[in-house]
C-alpha cells in the first residue's frame, strides 16, 4: 500500500500553502491559469530561465523536500513537459531557417527537465524518471511509485505531475476540437451541452512511502484502460470495485473528471450508474480545467477532502449525506480514449 504523507499543488485555485478551495477562481478566455506563488526557494537567476512547466513543477516540489529525508526517487508524469520552450525553439528553427540558434529552449523543452531540475536543485542522485503517456502520464508515475514503495517501503519518494497551458498546445488542441469555440465560464462548465472543455494547467506533488503512521491518505489501487467503448470501461470499473471493496463496503464519494464535453458524458454517466443513488458525486474540472495530467489535481483534491472532511459546495453533483468520508473513487477520462480509476482512502 502506498501512503501519502505530504502534498503540494500549484493550480488555478488557492491550493498552494494555505489551501482555500471553497472560493472558486474564475476562468478567463476559456482558460484556467495557475495561481503562481513567489517561489522563495528558487534562486532568482535560475527562476528567470525556467519555463512555466519547470517552474510550477519545481515550485510545488521544493516545499516537500525541505524537511523530509532526501527521497530515494523522483517520479514525474507530464504529457508535454516544457511545451512553451519547445515551440520557442521550433519557431527559431523556422524563422532563422535552421541557422545559428540558442540552445536554451531546446534543453528546457525536453519533458524530463522537470524531474531532472528537481534532482539538480536538491543534489538528488537517485532514481529519476519522467512518464509522458498523455492522459495517463500521472497514473503511470503513480504505478511506478507503488512499485518502488513495495521494493523499499521505508524510503520516501517524490511523486507528481505537471502540465502547462502554452499558447501553442492550446492552439493545437483548440484546432483539434478539444477546447470550446464559444466563450464559457468555469462556473457554467457542466451546463454547456456542447463538445469540448476549457483549458487548464497545474502541478501536484506528493511525498509518499510505504509507512502508514502519520500518513494523510493511502492509495489502495489503480487501474488504467485504453478504449473508447463505455461498456468496456464500465466492466473494468465493476471488476475494480469487486476486487477492492468487501461485499458490504461502499465508497463514500465518487469523484469524476466530467469536463463539460457532451461527447464524453456517456463515460461518466455509465460509471455513475453502477453505484446506487445514495453515493455522493463530486466533480473537479471546473477547478482545474482540462489537461492531460488533470487527474493529479483530482488526486490532490481527494487527499485534501479526506484530510479536511469538508466538501466545497461548487464541487457537488449529487447530494452528500453528512457521514464521515473514508473512501473516494476517482474516475477520469482523457479524450474518451484513456481512462483511470483510483481508490483513495483516509489513512
Amino acid at each position, binding site marked *: 500500500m502506498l501512503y501519502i504523507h505530504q502534498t503540494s499543488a500549484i493550480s488555478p485555485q488557492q491550493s498552494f500553502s494555505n489551501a482555500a478551495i471553497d472560493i472558486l477562481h474564475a476562468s478567463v478566455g476559456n482558460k484556467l491559469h495557475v495561481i503562481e506563488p513567489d517561489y522563495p526557494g528558487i534562486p532568482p537567476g535560475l527562476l528567470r530561465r525556467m519555463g512555466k512547466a519547470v517552474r510550477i513543477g519545481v515550485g510545488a516540489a521544493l516545499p516537500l523536500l525541505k524537511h523530509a529525508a532526501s527521497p530515494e526517487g523522483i517520479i514525474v508524469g507530464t*504529457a508535454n*513537459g516544457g511545451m512553451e520552450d519547445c*515551440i520557442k*525553439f*521550433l*519557431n*527559431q*528553427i*523556422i524563422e532563422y531557417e*535552421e*541557422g*545559428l*540558434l*540558442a*540552445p536554451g529552449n*531546446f*534543453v*528546457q*523543452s*525536453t*519533458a*524530463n*527537465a522537470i524531474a*531532472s*531540475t528537481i*534532482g*539538480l536543485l*536538491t543534489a*538528488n*542522485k*537517485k*532514481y*529519476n*524518471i*519522467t*512518464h*509522458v*503517456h*498523455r*492522459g*495517463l*502520464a500521472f497514473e*503511470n508515475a503513480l*504505478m*511506478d511509485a*507503488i*512499485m518502488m514503495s513495495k521494493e523499499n517501503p521505508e524510503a520516501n519518494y517524490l511523486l507528481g505531475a505537471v502540465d502547462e497551458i502554452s*499558447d*501553442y*498546445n492550446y*492552439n*493545437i*488542441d*483548440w*484546432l*483539434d476540437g478539444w477546447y470550446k469555440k464559444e466563450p464559457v465560464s468555469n462556473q457554467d462548465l457542466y451546463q454547456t451541452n456542447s463538445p469540448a472543455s476549457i483549458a487548464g494547467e497545474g502541478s501536484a506533488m506528493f511525498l509518499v512511502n510505504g509507512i502508514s503512521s502519520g500518513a494523510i491518505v493511502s492509495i489502495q489501487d489503480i487501474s*488504467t484502460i*485504453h478504449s473508447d467503448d463505455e461498456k468496456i470501461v464500465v466492466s473494468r470499473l465493476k471488476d475494480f470495485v469487486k476486487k477492492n471493496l468487501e461485499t458490504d463496503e461502499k465508497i463514500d464519494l465518487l469523484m469524476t473528471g466530467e469536463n463539460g464535453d457532451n461527447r464524453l458524458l456517456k463515460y461518466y454517466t455509465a460509471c455513475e450508474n453502477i453505484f446506487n443513488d445514495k453515493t455522493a458525486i463530486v466533480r473537479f474540472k471546473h477547478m482545474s480545467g482540462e489537461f492531460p495530467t488533470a487527474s493529479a489535481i483530482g488526486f490532490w483534491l481527494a487527499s485534501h477532502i479526506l484530510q479536511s472532511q469538508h466538501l466545497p459546495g461548487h464541487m457537488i453533483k449529487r447530494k452528500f449525506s453528512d457521514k464521515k468520508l473514508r473512501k473516494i473513487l476517482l474516475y477520469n477520462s482523457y479524450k474518451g*480514449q*484513456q481512462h483511470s480509476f483510483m481508490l483513495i482512502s483516509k489513512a
Partner: protein
Amino acid sequence: MGVISALGDNLSANRNALVNGECGITTLGLFPSAYSGKLPCGEIKISTESLKEKLKVDEPAVTRTDLLGLYALNEAIRDSGLRTEQLEANDTALVGATTVGGMCLTDELYHDANKDSEGSAAFLSSYDCGSVNLFLQKRYKIGGVINTINTACSSSANAIMYGARLIRHGLARRAIVGGVDSLAKFTINGFNALHILSPGVCTPFDKGRKGLNLGEGAAFLVLEKEEDIHNRHPYAELTGYGNANDAFHPSSISEQGDGPYLAMKEALQTAGLDPGEIGCINAHGTGTENNDETESRAMLRVFGSVPDFVSTKSNIGHTLGAAGAVEAVYTVFNLKHQEIYSSLHFKEPIESTGLKPVTAYKKIKVNHAMSNSFGFGGNCSSLIFSKA
C-alpha cells in the same frame, strides 16, 4: 525482438552488418532541411511513403516515428510468437519510449502551434510523445498497462526497466518494451545549437572525436516471466537494471561520471553480480567530448580493469529515445552468438583514461553483458543481460 536501424530493417540484417563492421552513417538525404546533403546521420533509407506501403498503413495521422515503431513491433511480435488473445489480454503491457514523437513533423507543428493555418488536421493528435504508443496499442489492441517514457537519451533503457518491474510486481504477465525515434529538424537543430554534432562520421572514444551523429531507429523486446518460458528457448535473461541521476548539469555529465557510475553499480547490485563477471559492455559512447571521457572514468571506477566494450553508435549514430532498446538488442546478440563487434572509426585513446574499445570482430565467452544509456538532465541508466 524486432529492430530497424540504419544497418537494416530486421534482426538478421542488423546482426550481419555488425559482424561485417558496416557503418550505416551517410549524408542526410530523405527530408528537406538546410542540413540535407551535408550532415552525416544514421538515416534509414526507406521513405515515409514506402514505410506506409510496406506496413499497409493508411491512417492519415500516422508519423514516421509511428511507422518505424510499428516496423520493429511487427517483427518482435512475429519473432516472439505472441498470439492475438495474449496481446489483447489485460496482462500484456506495452512500454515504449520516444523523445521526438510526432515532432518529426517540425514544419506542420510550427504552423499548427502558431495557428497560422486551418490546422494540418490529420496531425493534430500526433505531435506528442504519447501518440506513438497510442497508435501501436490500437493496431494490436494491446490490453494491459500502456506507457510512454521520456528521459531523453536513456528513455528506452528506462522503458525496459519499467516493463521488467511491471512483471516483477504482478502488474503484467508479459511486457513489450522498447523505443523509437525518427530524425527530425527539431533534434538536428537542437544538437547543432549545442555544438555537439560531428561534421564527419563520429569516432567514439577516440582522442580526436568531434561529436555525435544523430540516427533513427526502433526496437522492441518481449519480456516474459521465467515460469512462462517452459520449453521455449529465450534469447537472454534481463538480470539487472539501474537508474540514477547525475544531478550536475542540464546537458553534460559530471567530471567523474557520478550518474553513470551509480547506474552501473545499481545494475550490478540488482543482478547480484561482481564487476568482474561482466563480459562486455555496449557503452553509451556518443562520440562527444564530454560523454566519452566521463563514461570512461565511470567505467574505470566501477571495473578497475574495464571489460571489452564498444559503441555501436559508430554504426548507426545516436538514435536518442530508441538507443537503449536498439543497443539492448545488440547486447542480446553478444550473448546469443558469443561475439563482439568492432567499434568503428577509433584511432587513439583519450589521454586521461587510455581506454581502447574493441576494434575488430571476435568470438568471446560472455555470460553477462551490460548496456549503458545516459541522457540530458543527468538521466543515466544501465541494463545487464545474462546468457539464458
